[in-house]
């Protein structure tokens, strides 16, 4: 049997077939293998494809080069995460135009919750130090910081959370075999070590200016919210903020000096209704609210059920472990949140302790252990 990953790689290599069209194709054919084998007349019937698209889809040369891409991918230690994979970030999966394939160097974890910290490449020392500080703080709450590994704010956001041993994700606008900007070689290694670099682009694809807005939709799409640290009038991070709004994510902005051109973008965001950040509580407040809503609950139980860590757990154990996801809780509150009786919660928690999943703190507070 031919490796099924090859069809996914082929799909992502097709010129002119972006996220939206490939989603439509997958909807229609269910599996890339079926798309690969689709007849021309069958493809012609699909209204969303142009004749040029159909030409590409049946192009033998493109099909043949998929094998080469695949070899290249493995050679570069890149993993392929398809939209059907359990590990594919849930939030990203549900945006309008999710990439059907994500290339990953490093390690994506299903339990991670992401917040994006972004901003200008040209930043003031205030912006840089705030990016660093806010990332550090977020790590204390078990949050994984997402950014774009660009110069300036992005780099400091990654560095901040790495400095306290947290996890971080960089979403790149080029193939993962390319280091861009060049001086971030060490940072990139460190991100891969403590998180992941991800991209929707095949190895070898250069950091073209066009790629970056598309890259930004992934940064916001994967996250619960986007914090814009510093942005000038036409900063790319404002595009990320716009994506975030379209995708229904929280947008936060750090207020800046009204005379500073590096803060005109963020100050305007605040004026237009973004949440002003003057401390970590401002972020947690909003995020916690969205955590307690029903969607989020499904998100957690749903993803936990598929998590390897929770493989041998029964329904009650999963539900209880899940509600500890956001923060450590007192046993009474666990009972309230789950609706389980105290005696059930008591016994399940000890079981989870024995299984090494939760830890008990003084005062009958429980937290997840990973």
């Amino acid at each position, binding site marked *: 049997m031919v490796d099924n990953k090859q069809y996914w790689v082929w799909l992502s290599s097709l010129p002119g077939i972006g996220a939206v069209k490939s989603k439509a194709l997958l909807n229609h054919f269910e599996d890339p293998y079926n798309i690969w084998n689709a007849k021309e007349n069958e493809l012609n019937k699909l209204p969303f494809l142009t004749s040029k698209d159909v030409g590409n889809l049946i192009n033998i040369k493109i099909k043949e080069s998929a094998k080469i891409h695949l070899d290249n991918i493995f050679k570069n230690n890149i993993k392929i995460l398809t939209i059907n994979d359990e590990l594919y970030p849930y939030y990203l999966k549900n945006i309008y135009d999710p990439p059907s394939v994500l290339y990953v160097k490093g390690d994506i974890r299903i339990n991670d919750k992401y917040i994006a910290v972004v901003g200008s490449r040209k930043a003031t020392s205030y912006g840089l130090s705030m990016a660093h500080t806010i990332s550090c703080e977020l790590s204390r709450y078990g949050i994984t910081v997402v950014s774009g590994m660009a110069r300036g704010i992005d780099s400091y956001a990654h560095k901040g959370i790495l400095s306290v041993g947290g996890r971080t994700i960089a979403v790149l606008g080029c193939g993962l075999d390319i280091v861009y900007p060049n001086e971030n070689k060490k940072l990139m290694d460190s991100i891969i070590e403590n998180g992941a670099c991800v991209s929707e682009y095949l190895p070898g694809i250069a950091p073209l200016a066009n790629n970056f807005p598309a890259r930004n939709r992934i940064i916001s799409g994967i996250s619960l919210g986007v914090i814009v640290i510093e942005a000038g009038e036409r900063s790319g991070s404002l595009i990320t903020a716009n994506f975030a709004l379209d995708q229904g994510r929280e947008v936060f902005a750090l207020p800046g000096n009204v005379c500073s051109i590096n803060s005109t973008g963020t100050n305007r965001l605040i004026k237009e209704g973004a949440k002003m950040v003057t401390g970590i509580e401002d972020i947690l407040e909003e995020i916690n609210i969205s955590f307690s809503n029903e969607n989020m609950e499904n998100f957690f139980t749903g993803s936990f059920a598929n998590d390897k860590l929770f493989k041998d757990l029964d329904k009650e154990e999963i539900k209880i472990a899940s509600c500890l996801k956001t923060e450590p809780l007192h046993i009474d509150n666990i009972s309230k949140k789950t609706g389980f009786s105290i005696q059930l919660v008591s016994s399940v928690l000890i079981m989870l302790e*024995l299984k090494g999943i939760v830890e008990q703190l003084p005062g009958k507070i429980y937290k997840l252990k990973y």
Partner: protein
Amino acid sequence: MLSKIKSLGLMGIDGCIVLVETDISKGLPSFDMVGLGDTAVKESKERVRAAIKNADLDFPIKRITINLAPADKKKEGSAFDLPIALGILAATEQVNIKDIENYGFLGELSLDGEIKPVKGILPMVISARENGLKSIILPLENADEAAVVNGLNILPAGSIKDVVNHLNGLKKINKYSVDIDNIFRNNISYDVDFSDVKGQETVKRALEVAASGAHNCVMIGSPGCGKTMIARRLPTILPSMTFEEALEVTKIHSIAGTLATNTSLITQRPFRAPHHTISNVSLVGGGRHPKPGEISLAHYGVLFLDELPEFNRSALEVLRQPLEDGVVTISRINATLTYPARTTLICAANPCKCGNYLDHSKECTCTPKQIGQYLSKLSGPLLDRIDLHIEVSSIQYKDLDSKKEEEKSSDVRERVNRTRKIQQERYKGMNIYSNAELSPAMIKKYCKLDVQCKNILENAFERLGLSARAHGRILKVARTIADMEECQDIKTHHLLEAIQYRSLDRKIWSGQ
């Protein structure tokens, strides 16, 4: 002339017949008393003399000898005043009654001839009935207490004159009785209730487990988190007292003099909360004039030791044996007294020296090392008698203010009653009544685990760092939790919950 009058004394918590023999003969006037009386008994002479005179009766100017028999038992207190006075009046034929041997007399006399209340009425009256007395004359103020006993006439008298008039048939004293059933039914409610405690579901559950199996427990929590409030409500969820239990409790309090006047019967389970400065004797009983201690006053109820680490180590040491045996044994020169002491122990302790460790709104100024040390002081004698460790956190204001209806004591008590009944059935004829009392051999027999449970327990010891002493206690508590579910076998979830109550055995508290 010689007269013999019956009275009653106390041995431990039981009464015994004391015969007051009075001999009056010619000779130099004197008034002697023999038969191991204490000071109060010896001083009786002066009160009797004055009382008889002031009641317009004759005090003989002759040689008077009083013997309190049996002569080898120590007699205490002032209750012999009345029988001694009656002895003199009978010997001088100022009272004339044929069946005087069917009467018992109890009471202290004041100088003007009034009869004053005495301690220990209930056990003495019970003993009077057991010894076949038909009537007992005693102080008015003790009437309610005495009337609990039926099968003999309770004749309350206000003064020595009333007694003489009654015996001579001039003016009969009315028999006194109370409606026990009515008292029992009406007095069973407590003025505090479990539903006063807002939130704290886990703590309440733990207390219900404690009540269901008569387990001792300790609560750890910062000041003001409600430990005292919760402990005070533990008696209200214990099973309702039976008449026999009420009688026994009343006996103890009657002897100790802690019974309020005009109380027939203690129908509520006692709650005793001695301060940590208490002496060992006051805690377990004894002393020169032996009296029951706090642990006996808490018999069939709750003994609450607040601020446990502040108690003297030796005080905790002396509590050990009684907690194990359910009785206090006091050795005297010529007798051994026992006081019953079957109580549920509930202790409270702060989590650290400054007290704020678990309180997230205040700052704890202790170092991790100090925190670890503070509670380790608890380990040792007493902690080995404690089955449940309960951590109490302060509740949040919104819970305190909540309108949510909390469960009433009576509802909890109903479940507790059911669970206790299961235990009583199971342990019939074995001289124990609850899971807390199971001996190691009995644990083996009644707390069997299946393979799955055994694995969990083994795993728990390994992974949670439980200490060996936890083993038996976990099994007993698991037995209780299974009984609460009316489950014959201990299931995994029973065992797991029981493990939850051993936090002090674990490393959680050793500071971080």
